[in-house]
């Protein structure tokens, strides 16, 4: 995953003293990721379509129109271009969960202290 990482295996999660043992316990984060994906799917299906707090205030006070669109997003408004309806948001949401996880996981790998650093 990273050329600076000596070990090819993912970081073992959990503290060694109290973490449950076993493969399922070791890969708990896969379960966590599945929960996040499930929340995205539920959100795409059941979330309220009403404007959120900020946007409701913007509409009420007449400055909603001040917003401009930089137009950089490839999945604008949590949709996949060319795909309609709830399915579009489901796929976009799951893709987003994967992007955010990978980005932050790599950020963590880049920044976190490794055992070797402190042992040396």
């Amino acid at each position, binding site marked *: 995953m990273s050329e600076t990482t000596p070990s090819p295996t*993912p*970081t073992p*999660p*959990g*503290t060694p*003293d*109290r973490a449950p043992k076993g493969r399922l316990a070791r890969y*708990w*984060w896969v379960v*966590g*990721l599945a929960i*996040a*994906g*499930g*929340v995205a799917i*539920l959100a*795409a299906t059941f*979330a*309220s*379509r*009403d*404007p*959120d*707090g*900020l946007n*409701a*205030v913007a509409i009420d*006070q*007449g*400055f909603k129109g*001040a*917003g401009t*669109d*930089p137009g*950089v*997003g490839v*999945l*604008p*408004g*949590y949709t996949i271009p060319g*795909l*309609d*309806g*709830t399915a*579009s*948001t489901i796929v*976009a949401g799951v893709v*987003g*969960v994967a*992007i*955010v*996880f990978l*980005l*932050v996981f790599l950020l*963590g*790998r880049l920044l*976190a*202290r490794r*055992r070797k650093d402190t*042992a040396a």
Partner: protein
Amino acid sequence: MLASIGGFGVGLAPGPVQMHAPDGFLSLPIAAIMWALTLVAIVVSVKKTNETFDERAIPLMGVTAAFIFAAQMFNFQVIGGTSGHLLGGVLAAVLLGPWAGTLVMAAVIAVQGLVFQDGGLVVMGANIFNMGVVGTMGGYAVYRALCGVLGGEQRGRIPAAGVAAWLSVVAGATAMAIELGLSGTTDVAVALAAMAGIHVFIGIGEALVTMAALAFVQVSRPDLFHLRDARMLPAAA
């Protein structure tokens, strides 16, 4: 296959509404000041994370970010045709600490702006500050203080996080209102009343989701709470 699933959605309303402030809501000077504050918070967070963050907490960092991204999509009904959604700053900070928590919030909001066109780029500093830093740093300070009052983090974790989460939403909305007022977008007093008024209710959702997520971790994997303050020790074996 996608087409057949697509048929399922026909007739339903389109996807989630745009949530975060777009460019144009804030004046350039105010947006620049907010970017500066946010960059300071990010630089400090990178430094602190680099000094203290334990590599065993990396998967938790990724999962927390993924969950916050997904939960932010889930707008829940509040009152008067208005919805609210999780911000997640306090949740991130309780699980990961304020530094890694800040980086998680910045990453989520950056992806939302850059990939999903939700939230502007000029105002991204303000969005990260209002929805992230306010909760991860301010909210976390409140959380620690409340845990002290409640007899330690083990006992006080869930109620302290709930109160801090509620406060973080009201404080973030207040910050946004002040920024809107200083930008000349709208009258500051009116914006303050309206933003605080609705986010007092939205904050209840934030508190409930934050407490439920922490309660779930407490029941299923309480050892994950120790990752935040884990320190890399010389390898035992």
